[in-house]
């Protein structure tokens, strides 16, 4: 379980000694329960990716706390292998010098340091995301966007984490591939019994995959609703956002 309490984050604008800071997140509190699929929706620049980095523990909040099972998220051992991620920019998500096989090996070496290349495991991971074993020796620049994104998903699933954070994981793909990847995520969810935190600016994609969505605006939580009650949102901003999609 993930608990986020009154998280604030600001970035310095200008040099190291500059006083001015840009407030990116303020007063964020929510909970994510194991197995749940939570959508985080917001406009570009609303601080979604920043929130994602805080949840993963690769950055620290200025104030407030992010806890996985009661332990701070930035403690490496607390989240080791139980959290994973697929990032926004699939072109830089795989090391350009690594083959697909080597990229998939990386999370597997987390548990045992000298994991021998377990061919069958890698083949199965690739198969689960709809790629065949001929992809094993390809380099990321030889993959299309959708294929690279699938490899990233396979890599994220490899440690069988409790939670995968997907930051705009389908946004840069075209419509039909998007649906394929979303279906893939749905099937993996049942196969591995895990949950997602699905960051997106696309309400339809969130509604397709998520149980609950959290609408973020300028670094604040505007509203949190269950997906099946998406039509009766309260706040005017959320209403406006929905109207644009429904229209």
């Amino acid at each position, binding site marked *: 379980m993930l608990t986020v309490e009154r998280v604030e984050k600001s970035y310095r604008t200008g040099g*190291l000694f500059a006083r001015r800071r840009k407030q990116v997140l303020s007063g964020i509190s929510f909970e994510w329960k194991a197995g749940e699929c939570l959508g985080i929706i917001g406009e570009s620049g609303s601080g979604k990716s920043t929130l994602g*980095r805080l949840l*993963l*523990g*690769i950055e620290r909040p200025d104030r407030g706390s992010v806890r996985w099972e009661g332990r701070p998220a930035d403690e*490496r*051992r607390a*989240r*080791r*292998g139980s*959290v*994973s*991620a697929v*990032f*926004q*920019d*699939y072109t*830089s*998500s*795989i*090391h*350009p*010098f690594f*083959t697909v096989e080597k990229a998939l090996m*990386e*999370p597997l070496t*987390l548990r045992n340091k000298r994991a021998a290349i377990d061919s069958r495991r890698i083949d199965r991971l690739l198969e689960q995301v709809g790629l065949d074993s001929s992809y094993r020796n390809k*380099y990321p*620049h030889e993959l299309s966007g959708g294929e690279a994104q699938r490899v990233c998903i396979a*890599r994220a699933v490899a*440690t069988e984490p409790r939670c995968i*954070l997907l930051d705009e994981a389908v946004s840069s793909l075209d419509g039909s591939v998007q649906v394929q990847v979303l279906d893939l995520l749905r099937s993996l969810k049942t196969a591995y019994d895990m949950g997602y935190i699905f960051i997106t600016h696309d309400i339809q994609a969130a509604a397709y995959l998520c149980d609950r969505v959290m609408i973020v605006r300028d670094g604040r939580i505007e509203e949190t609703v269950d997906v099946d009650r998406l039509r009766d949102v309260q706040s005017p901003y959320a209403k406006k956002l929905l109207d644009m999609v429904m229209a």
Partner: protein
Amino acid sequence: MRWLRPIGQDKLAALSLFLISTTLFAGLFAPFLAPHAPDEVHMELRFAAPSWEYWLGNDQLGRCVLSRLLYGIRPSVLWVGVALALSAGIGTIVGFVAGYFRGATDAVLMRICDGMLSFPGYVLTLAVIGILGVGLENILIAFALMKWAWFARVIRTSVRQYADSDYVRFAKTLGFGDVRIMARHLVPAALPDMAVAASSTFGSMILQISGFSFLGLGIQAPHAEWGMMLNEARTVMFSKPELMLAPGIAIILVVSAVNYLSDSLQLALDPRLATSRRAPHSRTVAESAKLQGSEVA
């Protein structure tokens, strides 16, 4: 050794590697390979043309040019290599720490580098020689002290850019330690930049060593050094220009071999360049020219 295979396919790189290793070998075993003692004077053989006994002829004191060339490898290539490794080593560590951890660490380290770089290189070297005394080892110490800051800057810039990528974020998410992330992800990514920086510094170090030897601050007179051989030949530049050939060609060959090798290392490491083996060469050359320019400035 995946990267050795493409170097084997690349003829120029293979030739460079061969040339460099032969040079290193010849330098290490100079006493066994040299046909004569390097400081053996034969006044009757002054400026003698190449003969069966003296393959590359004799210089203004009748000394064997080939033997001097072989002995000259030690200060010109081996010791310069040591100074280079030392400064590149320090610079790499500082650059990695600054580029990876950022924030206050980065700011402090970079201000120290700025401080080091604000001294003109030659003046700082002269100051070090003034304090420690004349001699090759002191010049090399001065080089190591001076150049690491430049390496640190170059490497910090490239590490910073790679440390910001999503593959590093993913490794952090999984919970890998910083040292492991640097070793597995950042070192390979930054290695081509490091090689280009090191190879361009190598050339300028050889030339600077010879400059200091010329001033009488480095290698002392009877000992052989390529730059000093060039300087000695300079006095008879118009009457006996062929004396400049041996040390000049040796310097050019070694420096170009090092540069070609660093270029092909980049080609070998980066699979994106493997598909188009021709085109990227011009880019890397332009890059090394840029680095060279910024260093000379």
